[in-house]
């Protein structure tokens, strides 16, 4: 049996999904008499109406942007845990630009454009700190990223309760919402915007092309797969590592910018909504390949949105989506491990 063949890979992947579903069903069966009903409700809750579908897409775009960025750092062999902070900084930069320019003579479209651009810049800056720490300070990117995440959260709270607080009193509900001329235009009365959909799709396509068709992508992958050999071959490895952080940070910043301009229209304390961490899961699940990122991210977004139904309809906790997502990743990794073991035995 050739355990590296695509068919065997697919079989193991299928088995992993199957096992994850069984596991989630067992967890459900412990809390309700009707586990299948729960799945049905999640399905209805995510695809049951146009409004629901658009809500799923609202979650999909930032998740897809985060995943796209993470594919770059994963390719370079890096674990960019700091992505949450990078999304947050993207949101902060975006908010800052809109706050500064709202009411100015610039057309609103220009303001939105500049704010999104600076969001990407903010994310990239925050990521560059992790990169510097990693490359020149010898601090593992996981620890550096984790630290920067806390700093980002603290910064958000300080802004919301300090300089940017609502007139009167600061509250957890965030800063004062912007005038709706500074919102990304929505489709009808749906919450999703063509613009954010466009940014998300363009992002993943760009990353796919970058990683699969360019010298940059191939070299990045060489650095990630064997840094020592890449260095001996004469590749400037540190530059590639830094570039991957910057690109991932920029994509994370874009995700933050979309959250601000397209979804919340203000800065809120948990602006990243955990899409960074979820993106890490998606990245692992698709085995760091860009091809599958979009559908899997859509599936994860649907789970997140659909499970909101659970507490409403069935009085179940909405954490089910997290259980299923976590179980999926764990079982896929486990099955990969089993496959590798079989490979080693040969």
């Amino acid at each position: 049996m050739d355990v590296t063949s695509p068919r065997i890979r697919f079989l193991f992947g299928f088995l992993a999904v199957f096992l994850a579903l069984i596991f989630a069903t067992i967890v459900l069966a412990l809390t309700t008499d009707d586990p299948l009903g729960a799945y049905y409700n999640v399905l209805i809750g995510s695809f049951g109406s146009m409004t629901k579908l658009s809500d799923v897409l609202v979650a999909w775009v930032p998740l897809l942007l985060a995943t796209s960025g993470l594919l770059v750092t994963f390719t370079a062999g890096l674990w960019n845990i700091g992505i949450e902070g990078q999304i947050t900084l993207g949101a902060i930069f975006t908010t800052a630009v809109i706050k500064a320019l709202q009411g100015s003579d610039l057309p609103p479209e220009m303001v939105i454009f500049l704010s999104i651009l600076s969001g990407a810049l903010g994310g990239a800056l925050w990521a560059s700190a992790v990169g510097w720490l990693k490359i020149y300070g010898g601090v593992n990117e996981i620890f550096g990223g984790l630290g920067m995440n806390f700093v980002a959260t603290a910064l958000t709270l300080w802004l919301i309760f300090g300089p940017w607080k609502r007139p009167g009193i600061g509250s957890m509900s965030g800063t004062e919402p912007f005038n709706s001329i500074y919102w990304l235009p929505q489709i009808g009365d749906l919450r999703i915007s063509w613009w954010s959909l466009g940014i998300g799709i363009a992002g993943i396509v760009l990353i796919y092309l970058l990683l699969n068709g360019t010298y940059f992508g191939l070299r990045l992958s060489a650095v990630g797969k064997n840094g020592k050999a890449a260095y001996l071959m004469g590749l400037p490895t540190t530059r590639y590592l830094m570039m991957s952080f910057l690109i991932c940070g920029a994509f994370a910043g874009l995700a933050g910018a979309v959250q601000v301009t397209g979804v919340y229209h203000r800065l809120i304390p948990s602006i990243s909504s955990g899409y960074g961490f979820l993106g890490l899961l998606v990245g692992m699940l698709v085995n760091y390949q860009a091809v599958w990122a979009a559908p899997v991210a859509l599936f994860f977004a649907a789970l997140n949105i659909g499970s909101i139904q659970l507490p409403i309809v069935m009085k179940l906790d909405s954490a089910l989506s997290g259980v299923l997502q976590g179980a999926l990743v764990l079982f896929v990794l486990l099955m990969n491990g089993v496959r590798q073991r079989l490979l080693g035995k040969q």
Partner: protein
Amino acid sequence: MRIELRHIHKHFGKVHANNDISLMIESGGIQGILGENGAGKSTLMKILSGFIQADSGEILMDGKQIIISSPADAIRHGIGMLHQDPLDFPPMRVIDNFLIGQRGGIFPDRKAALRGLMEMQQKLDFSISPSAYVDMLTVGERQQLEIMRLLWLGARVLILDEPTTGISALQKDKLFATLKQLAKQGITILFVSHKLEDVEYLCEKIAVLRRGVLVGNVSPPYSTDELVEMMFGKVVSFGGRDPCLNNEELLTLENIGIEDDRLNIRDVNFSLCRGEVVGLAGMEGSGQRQFLRLLAGLLRPVAGKILLDGKDITGKPYHYFVKNGVSYMPAARLEEGLFPGLTLTDHFILAGEQKGFIIQRELARQQAQKKIEEFSIFGTPTSPVEALSGGNQQRTLLALQRPGLKILLLEHPTRGLDIESSLWVWEKLKERCRQGASIFFISSDLEEILQYSDRVLVFYGGKISQPLKAEETTTDQLGQLIGGKGW
């Protein structure tokens, strides 16, 4: 304790590392285990100490068969191994290291351990402070600590793997005295080494291994010539050397000094001419690797100058060396040379020149196909490189080398290759020489060194010999120099 090994076999893939080895070691004896790198001595000792398991064969202790499936098992049977690099915990204190490996109890009995350590130090005449940190100790002291720890754990058989590398002469004398004292107390000692003078001086018997086979187990008086021949096999002569193209100097080393935590090489002067092949001989860890990395720009000299084509390149970064036509091919092909997970085409794209931003996949595939044919690599453009055999990986590594190189630095260019592949590799390398490139290569195969080099440098314990003309040198002479004789 009397140890008996019966018909030990061990395979690593295609390599037969231990081939039917039977050996009897008397209680209280000092048994030498001699052999060149890769002869199978470490494998045999690792089997005895439970690090790895034999494929077949028996181990008997005082006539009773025992099964050793882990190092903990071995120490339970009274067998302890002192590794070449001490397996201790440098950031911890001496006394904590001493306690590690102790069985039973949640709370270690520090007082008893301290008493034990001090008593043993007195008996063996060591003086290590129990509260010192291990990373402050010398390698010799760390060995002493390891010996005491193993004895305290109840070892009656001590295996020492190359214990005299990296310690001073004084510490070596001390170690030998200790070992003789321990042997008198009935401890059985297995002394693994490639240093002829050490085993000749210390051991009551010497077992010689060559390519996995026990060639003999000799008793004193020893004849050095006989031992060398047993280690390296019969002297075979080959032809096939290209004369130096001209006497144009390509690279000059002036009073170079190399230092790392084990070695201190001083005042190396050497000049290399265009098209020349220089073989670097010596036991592993004698400084050849450092020398090669120095030439690659990966290690900076602590003194002296490197001139390439008359230009001072001392202290320049590695990338500068690469740009100036120096190429380094590491021995660990998959670890340092190639990219597991990438295909052959990917490798050729990476090594080739960048044309634009987007990769022309179809063109790249065709070029890869051409290279694959030119270098007779058994694979396709889409084969992942880790799926290739060792010989084909080496061919790939060669195929990746840029044209127009000035200096090729090779570590074990034919290690693990069959004869046909080796010949082929050298054919390609000689072609490079005819185009004006010079080669430095490390090899533990003396025949290969003498066959292909114009000149040979021998490394021994941080010293580098004067360049020897390969045509005027025999494997015997080389073997003696490598073993530390005749310096």
